[in-house]
């Protein structure tokens, strides 16, 4: 058996077991309505987490994601309020901006040989600051096109709604899976995560790949920002503080090694869904404090860190045997 696949199986198993436990207590939780909401409510997080997965697979980290999502919301809201532009060109402009922002971070990380942590920390403050520059208040979005996007859904059997946002997230996951696992770029990402020096010796273009990795994360953060703007119908510079940490948590619970080189995009989807499920459970229960979400996520993170360490040990034992 391939040891590398175990974390993915563990993630899926944990999600299914958690769902089973929830179902035993609240039979209503097993319905397409809950599943539809799970996808819609976590769409922006899932989209950002796909970008984060690629970054973490390369052994990096992107702390700017939450700020970029907030910037995206404010940018869209302010532009729609102050100009007569249609949302679609605004989306295109925004995605161009966040992609360039990510690419610039990647270029700095490579050119200065700086830790991604530092560079994206600066990016986090920068993006948040620019969001404040645009507005200090929550700006509502009341463009008719937005309403259309918000209300677009496909009615699943059982009256659950598969919304546009949910579909967008699933498409992002599918696209991320292809990118990470079925392209030369994706293999280069794994190669850099496995060892940058060795990857360079094997002819992987380190600089270009690093720029592309962070550009991709910037693009996904921009897309997550659009999803968040559609979801909340507003732009607010204080929104989504710390979402990058949720995304990192989802990636790790999804079975990706935080030090890079091993993991799957599909696992990240289940990481996001598991975190969403915990929240749903708390809503169903009604008496629990919502902080329990954090506690359970913390425990899950520990579990996965220990699991990864254990797998590493098993791998070494297998080889010496």
């Amino acid at each position, binding site marked *: 058996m*391939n040891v590398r696949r175990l974390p993915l199986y563990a993630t899926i198993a944990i999600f299914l077991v958690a769902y089973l436990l929830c179902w035993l207590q609240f039979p209503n939780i097993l319905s397409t309505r809950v599943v539809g909401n799970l996808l819609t409510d976590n769409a922006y997080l899932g989209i950002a987490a796909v970008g984060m997965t690629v970054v973490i697979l390369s052994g990096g980290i992107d702390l700017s994601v939450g700020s970029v999502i907030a910037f995206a919301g404010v940018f869209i809201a302010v532009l729609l309020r102050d100009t007569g532009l249609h949302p679609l060109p605004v989306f295109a402009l925004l995605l161009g901006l966040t992609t360039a922002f990510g690419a610039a971070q990647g270029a700095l990380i490579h050119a200065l040989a700086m830790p991604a942590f530092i560079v994206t920390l600066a990016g986090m403050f920068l993006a948040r600051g620019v969001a404040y520059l645009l507005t200090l208040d929550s700006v509502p979005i009341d463009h008719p096109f937005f309403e259309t996007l918000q209300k677009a859904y496909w009615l699943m059997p059982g009256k659950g709604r598969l919304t546009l946002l949910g579909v967008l997230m699933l498409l992002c996951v599918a696209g991320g899976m292809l990118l990470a696992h079925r*392209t030369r770029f994706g*293999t280069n990402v794994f190669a850099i995560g496995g060892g940058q020096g060795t990857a360079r*010796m094997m002819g*992987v273009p380190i600089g270009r790949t690093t720029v592309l990795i962070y550009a991709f994360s910037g693009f996904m953060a921009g897309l997550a920002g659009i999803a968040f703007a559609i979801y909340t119908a507003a732009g607010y510079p204080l929104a989504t503080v710390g979402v990058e940490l949720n995304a990192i948590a989802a990636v790790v619970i999804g079975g990706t090694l935080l030090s890079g080189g091993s993991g799957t995009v599909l696992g990240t989807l289940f990481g996001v869904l598991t975190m969403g499920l915990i929240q749903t459970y708390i809503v169903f229960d009604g008496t629990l404090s919502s902080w329990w979400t954090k506690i359970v996520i913390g425990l899950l993170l520990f579990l996965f860190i220990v699991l990864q360490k254990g797998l590493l040990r098993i791998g070494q034992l297998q*080889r010496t045997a």
Partner: protein
Amino acid sequence: MLLQARSLTKRFPGTLALDGVTFELAAGEVHALLGENGAGKSTLIKCLTGAYRRDGGEIVLDGRPVDPQSTAHAQELGIGTVYQEVNLLPNLTVAENLTLGRQPRRWGLTSRRGMRALAREMLAGYGLDIDVERDLGAYSVAVQQIVAIARAVHLSGKVLILDEPTASLDAREVAMLFDVVRRLRERGLGIVFVSHFLDQVFAISDRITVLRNGRHIATTEAAGLDRLRLVNLMLGRELEQATGHGRTAHDAGEELLRAERLGKRGRIAPFDLSIRKGEVVGMAGLLGSGRTETAEVLFGATAADSGAVKDRAGAIDVSTPARAIASGFGFAPEDRKTDGIIGDLSVRENIALALQAHRGWARPIPRAEQRRLAEDFIRRLDIRTPGPEKPVGQLSGGNQQKVILARWLAMNPRFLILDEPTRGIDVGAHAEVLRLINEMVAGGMSLLVISSELEELVTVSDRVIVVRDRRHVAELTGQEITTDAIVRAIAAPEAATEAAE
């Protein structure tokens, strides 16, 4: 000739690493490149593979002058290299490793089937029956090494440089690797083989080139070359050389400690070693023969998997360096720059380091006391520094070495291991260090001195242990200790006993 390097020169600040070296490689031959540390082997290889830019000379491949700019460029030209380790990525599958950068694609996506087929094709003829879709890390080092060779040969295809490929392989794996090398030789590749293991060199090589101090010393046919002569070429000594002059005998007391069947699989075969109080035990052997490995298991830097260390009071725990230090052991490693000194810290801080670690961080040594300690050692060891606050990195090699000695002397250990204490320091400092060794021993300390400088060992040692192929093969005492006897013991055990008699 397939590959010719003509009067290659490479300078580093302060040293001439390659001094007009000429090296020729024919198609269909295995050419061993031998030499001790600092001989210029790795510099030559790095010039050939484009990792270094040469300062002079030319490289001719297939009759055309070439100028490799990087390892990737050298590979395109036809020169591939496989190093001792870190050639490939253990977190990727075998197929991904083999096809990285050249994955077959369909509709823009990499094709798993295509990669599998290409990988199998690349591995054909290597006698490996492995699942190419498993992670490379799941396979043994030998298999990884062969996969690395397959990749290098596929990408370059003319010249294959094997840099210490067998260093972490066992005997069966070495045989497997050599099978592959012989097949490649038959296919007409030119293979450069760098190794410290003379047995392996004789087993596989057609010709042997010896470098020493950046110079080309000799190129000869391997068949008919005498081991003793080869060792002499590498060490640069003639057998007629002076025997045992200027030796200092120390007043060795009773047994201080004894290692019984101590060993670590794959690094050093179990050995017995007894050290007496106030004695200098020398350790001789070629690079990679197991000298440093012996020191590391004694000090706990590598955990031993057999045997024990005992003194009169009973067993001593040397499972980690911290425990070895607690039992009064010290170890000044071979590579000062990476393992010994901390260049940015001052002389004072470097000297106080081990003592502080020993006391525990909860009980800091007062600054005034550190200063007193540092000034005391600066005077006693004659460390040339403007003052105790000077960063150690700015001192000369000899003075850095003295700072390391001071660090251990401050601990007042009963047993100190010095690995190449005089490497890279000038003649004056060399004599100083030897004087210090004698002083320390006179004070009742016991020393294990590892050195490639045979005269140095002859001068300071009361006994010399000779190590070959990761095994302690001979022990010379008293009048037996001559450079001649040591060289013979390094070359072959039979010769050593002859010399001893």
